[in-house]
């Protein structure tokens, strides 16, 4: 079954369209249902590489530093993301611990790491397909932006009864969330199209 690279089927309604060349930053939409068909990213793969590398560094910082620091009557306390997960495990909350580990820590880290691998190996077509599949399958399960909001809500909640300060990790997570947003906006399928 020979593929037809000049055609595109809408992911939502299956209408068939002929591809037209786009200028950088433009998006093609389905004529029938309006869903996005494909996009020509404003950023080049090299620029995406720089953004992914930055996201990797900020995520590492975010995972090592305390998220919130607080004190009650002079007794200090702080926690990292992993610290919180270990506490949940210790209390026997296995489901919650797994969910937070996956969506808050593992999937975002994997997303960025695999994205780096994908962008660094355009000359290895045998690696590109599995990396592309993994990144696009994992992406919806990374929830860094939701976690940042969760950190802010916790800050407000604790501020009623204790002295609280946002830790370095909360800022690092916020920056990571923005970078991941830029990465999600980059149409990965473009890489597969160009590999042909």
């Amino acid at each position, binding site marked *: *079954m020979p*593929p*037809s690279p000049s*055609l*595109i*089927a*809408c*992911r*939502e*309604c*299956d*209408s*068939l369209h002929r591809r037209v060349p786009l200028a950088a930053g433009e998006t093609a939409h389905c*004529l*029938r*249902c*309006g*869903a996005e068909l*494909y996009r020509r990213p404003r950023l080049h793969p090299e620029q995406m590489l720089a953004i992914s590398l930055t996201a990797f560094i900020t995520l590492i910082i975010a995972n090592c530093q305390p*998220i*919130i620091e607080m004190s*009650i*009557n002079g*007794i200090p*306390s*702080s*926690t*990292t993301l992993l*610290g*919180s997960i270990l*506490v*949940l495990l210790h*209390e026997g*909350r296995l*489901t*919650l611990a797994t*969910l*937070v580990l996956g*969506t*808050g820590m593992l999937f975002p880290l994997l997303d960025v790491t695999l994205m780096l691998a994908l962008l660094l190996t355009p000359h290895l077509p045998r690696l590109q*397909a*599995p990396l*592309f*599949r993994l990144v*696009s399958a994992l992406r919806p*399960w990374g*929830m860094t932006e*939701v*976690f940042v*909001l*969760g950190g802010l*809500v*916790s800050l*407000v*909640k*604790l501020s009623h*009864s204790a002295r609280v300060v946002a830790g370095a990790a909360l800022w690092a997570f916020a920056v990571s969330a923005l970078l991941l947003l830029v990465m999600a906006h980059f149409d990965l*399928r473009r890489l*597969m199209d160009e590999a*042909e």
Partner: protein
Amino acid sequence: MSAAHPTARDLGLTGCRRCGLVVRGTDAGLCPRCQSRLSSRQPNSLTRCWALLAAAAILYVPANLLPIMVTTTLFGTQRDTILSGILYFWETGSRGLAVLIFTVSILIPLLKLISLAYLTYSAAHPRGQSIHQRARLYRLVEVIGRWSMLDMFVVALMAGLVRFQNMGLIEAGPGAAPFGAVVVLTMLAALTLDPRLMWDSAEDKE
């Protein structure tokens, strides 16, 4: 078959939903470019979606009735369900936060369950509801579902932080697991529902 917009299936083709390649034939197989599983229409999409929704609807009950956070202080133990946590915010003056958490923790999961059930039902039994409105609802459900994880992260952070011997201890409650499961199950249901089926059944109405 709608004359104005022929689908890939009408023309004997299949589009890979991962990488976008259009392949001849409508049989299941692997995409020759990215090796994802191809399907002209996801097999048993609606049945699987119903199963996931039923599981989520059942777990929605303990998720809202059981405490998700247990606070122990010198003055006693307080068990907070999602709703009582929201009331606490409302009463202590953080009304904006109360509204935010009510929206993401109670409203979004409920609306998501109802919307997905409606979309799944109307994909099999179209009765002239606007397909364009249903498509918009589908996209909305796909985007907002993840925000329901908010309270899970809050509980995890509070449990990690508040560990003072006599002065205060916060633990996750038994409601957290079913709540997290509702979020995951409804996200899976949204991924399982093949929107192309909605458009297929709407075709003759256009």
